[in-house]
């Protein structure tokens, strides 16, 4: 962004719109078992709610939200949640990503699969959100330091 100027209407509108998009993103992730939705779509919506503030407010306001250095650890956390689920189920005696072996007591194998899918979808959502923000940040920065 070479040139930046403040417009209160744009910032106010995006501030009004952004929390609702974020709530809808979490709804899409957690309600993905019963309606169309899931990790990828919810992650894209979360990234949209954060990128809206970044596009509207510029670098100074976006520093108050998720900072630029925080996106890479978030993506790593998302990937590690997925991979650790597979590793835990493999350490408990099943195959890789076999959710029947997850160590949650008192549940049928079918319900264990239900919660396993929920856990990995949260991981997918975090990773997709962090990576979309990371691509945007790096593109803006690469253009600035031309």
């Amino acid at each position, binding site marked *: 962004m070479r040139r930046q100027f403040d417009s209160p209407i744009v910032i106010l509108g995006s501030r009004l719109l952004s929390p609702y998009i974020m709530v809808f993103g979490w709804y899409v992730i957690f309600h993905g078992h019963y*309606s*169309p939705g*899931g990790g*990828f779509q919810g992650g894209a919506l979360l990234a949209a709610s954060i990128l809206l503030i970044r596009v509207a407010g510029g670098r100074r306001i976006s520093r108050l939200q998720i900072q630029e250095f925080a996106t890479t650890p978030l993506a790593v956390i998302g990937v590690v949640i997925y991979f650790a689920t597979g590793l835990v189920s493999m350490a408990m005696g099943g195959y890789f990503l076999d959710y029947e072996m997850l160590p949650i007591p008192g549940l049928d194998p079918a319900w264990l699969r239900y919660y396993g899918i929920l856990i990995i979808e949260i991981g997918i959502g975090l990773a997709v959100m962090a*990576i*979309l923000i990371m691509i945007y940040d*790096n593109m803006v920065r*690469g*253009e600035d330091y031309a």
Partner: protein
Amino acid sequence: MLDFFTGHYAYWFTIILLCVGLYGILFKKNLIKKTIGLAILQISVVLYFVSIASKWDATVPVLDPNIPVDQVANYLNPLPHTLMLTAIVVGVATLGVAFTLLIAIYNRYNTLDEQELIEKIQ
């Protein structure tokens, strides 16, 4: 004849979209326009896969307790939907990589035109 048309028009539209994207990749000189052509081609493949997953008189692949699951003619085929769901996200990521490379090229050579770029590289 009308059956033939309603059964095939989706294929024709995706083929036209694929040819638009391929034209953008092959004949445009600007690298940004080539990337846009790549995105259009990818979207055409996604639309083709979604269109072949449809069935007449079937509902979406979310289980409804009123509709029995034993007859597979009641539900759409969920496999192409899943494949394309992942393909869309990978498409976004690869587009990000493509634009990153374009930004790097522009920072170094100050142009995105193909001919000028070849002359400057040599």
